[in-house]
């Protein structure tokens, strides 16, 4: 019985953690290039609403529709990121203010809600969704079966992405250049690296991944559209990057840890175990984020922290 609960929490922790992995990886790439993106929550909502619209309105086989829905989410997230990139990189608006503006523009009372209403998709039941795949026919194995071999394509894609980002950052030349741009843009510029292009590219990819994280909600987690359905996950993803010390490997661990915090309430509730009020469980991920951020800024952690030195600072050549 007890081990059942633990397994149930872990299985749904992977579900709740997946959007954090995707959006977190996106934010990590943008921040590594020196661009702080506080618009993640809005970008996720745009991804979620666009993907759900496609999955509702397109006709065709499930595989094709889902693929197009994912594409729509990527484009929607990247489009929001393009606004942020233009404002913060090209005309050098304060990145914090610009990011907040994106979240208000696209957020719960903004464009995502507007489009949901214009497209008339609020409250509709999903027509297509990602389901668990019986990977290698191993889904019936105890414990690891449901945990590892019976996830949906989204989850597997997120695992592949983690490896790709890790390899890209630490094993390729563009990855090295990216880290240089984030650490010391003027030195990178002197080396002949196009700082602006690197920042644009990684901000856009970051936005696309945030859109993908949003699409996970409407295509896999609970295929339905309601205003503001990401409910703060985008913000936790930004925090995650900080206490993962800007490292993709730690980011995955953190994402699933926060998946556990998010999964605890719903799992206990469906089993009618009410030790603490449900509001406590709902608040838990946010409380734990505050604690994790505080812990990551203690002097012990500060010795190993990897904040990109130029994070949040616009780059400009000093010229006549």
């Amino acid at each position: 019985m007890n081990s059942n609960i633990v397994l149930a929490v872990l299985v749904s922790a992977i579900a709740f953690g997946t959007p954090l992995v995707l959006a977190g990886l996106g934010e990590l790439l943008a921040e590594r290039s020196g661009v702080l993106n506080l618009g993640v929550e809005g970008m996720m909502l745009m991804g979620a609403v666009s993907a759900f619209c496609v999955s509702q309105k397109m006709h065709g086989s499930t595989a094709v529709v889902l693929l197009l829905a994912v594409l729509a989410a990527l484009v929607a997230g990247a489009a929001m990121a393009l606004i942020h990139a233009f404002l913060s990189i090209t005309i050098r608006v304060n990145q914090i203010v610009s990011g907040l503006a994106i979240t208000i523009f696209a957020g719960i009372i903004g464009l995502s809600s507007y489009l949901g209403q214009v497209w008339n998709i609020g409250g509709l039941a999903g027509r297509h969704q990602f389901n668990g795949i019986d990977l290698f026919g191993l889904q019936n194995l105890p414990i690891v079966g449901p945990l590892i071999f019976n996830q949906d394509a989204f989850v597997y894609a997120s695992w592949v992405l983690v490896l790709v980002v890790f390899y890209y950052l630490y094993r390729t030349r563009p990855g090295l250049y990216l880290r240089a741009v984030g650490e010391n843009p003027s030195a990178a510029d002197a080396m002949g690296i196009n700082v602006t292009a690197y920042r644009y590219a990684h901000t856009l990819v970051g936005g696309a991944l945030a859109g993908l994280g949003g699409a996970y909600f409407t295509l896999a987690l609970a295929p339905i559209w309601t205003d503001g359905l990401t409910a703060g996950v985008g913000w936790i993803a930004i925090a995650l990057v900080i206490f993962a010390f800007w490292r993709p490997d730690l980011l995955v661990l953190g994402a699933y840890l926060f998946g556990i915090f998010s999964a605890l309430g719903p799992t206990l509730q469906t089993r009618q175990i009410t030790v603490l009020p449900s509001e406590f469980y709902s608040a838990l991920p946010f409380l734990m984020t505050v604690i994790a951020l505080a812990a990551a800024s203690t002097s012990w952690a500060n010795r190993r922290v990897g904040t990109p030195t130029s994070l949040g600072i616009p780059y400009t050549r000093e010229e006549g």
Partner: protein
Amino acid sequence: MTGPLRIERRLDTPKWLRLAVPLMSILLAAIIVGILLAATGHNPISTYHQMYSASVTADGALTSTFVYATPMLFTGLCAAFAFRMRTWNIGGEGQLYMGAVGASATGIMLGDWPRPLLIIAMVVGGALAGMVWACIPALLRAYLRTNEILTSLMLNYVAGFFMYYLIFDSSSYWRDLTTPGATVFPTGKTLVANASWPGITIGSFTLPMGFLLGIGLAVGLLVLIRSTRYGFEMRVMGDSPQAANYSGINTKRKIVSVMAISGGIAGIAGSSQIGDFGHVLDPRGLQQAQYGYTGIVVAALALYNPLAVVLVSLLIGGLTNAGFALEGPSFPTGLVGTMEGIILFTVLGGEILARYRIGLRHRATAPAGVGATSGAGLPS
């Protein structure tokens, strides 16, 4: 290479530009929103006309514009004050909730006090609750350098759930358990008539007391920032934290006190929600309105000037009022935030245009080897 655009700081901005740029920015925003409206099958001209009527000219429209503007005035001041020092208190939303919790507790507890004292007590009660809530991210920021943007934001969600717990999931002091329907439809205790703040009524128009209080606060903050030692130190810290440190300003105490004042102001927004309008702690109503986040829009559009916050709060209050009044198929709810966002984009962009000269990069740029970075870094 840094792109084809060449941006340099103007030595001084001409006066006409300082006026023309914000006006052009808002006009440009109106055009962009118009295109969006037309693209989604609405007539922009008639939509704008309806909005104007719903927020200004219709019966009772102006009164209800002030109803929305009042909390935004406080949350706008909350954000503007903290942002001026580059202390990013995004927690106005949660500080407002806690202020409402504090003010309604005070109002319930001291219900038999004489009216003026009771009202003052409610203002203080809300302000203190907002302050205490803001001190959590403030202390973490000051003593551990924890990113206050994220911690203050996370606490908004926590405060929201806390408020829910008080009314919907417990037998708390705030919840009304006396009426027979109270267990089915949980509500907060309604405050005594003495606890409702007096507005000024002129004909059919009512000016809430909270708005007057907010104007007073805006003037006070302007004086504090412009003409006191405290404000001078704030501006030094905002422009250069290092310089502030070297000149012997106690930066840690400054961060805590600025965030506490900022939180206190948002707390008074909560007091005003209870005293001026609701008279009862209503978690759903408070959360739906998103006044705290809208305060950030107001502050940014006012370029962190407290007096400008008063005017901008009326503009955004009118927009929100129109949004709620016209809500329906021809005016989806999301339009309000969309418009706020687009106005923000154009005003923020326009601000830069006013301060910098933008032109195309010349081909023969001097090969400046070493670049420079500017601006203040972020806390980790």
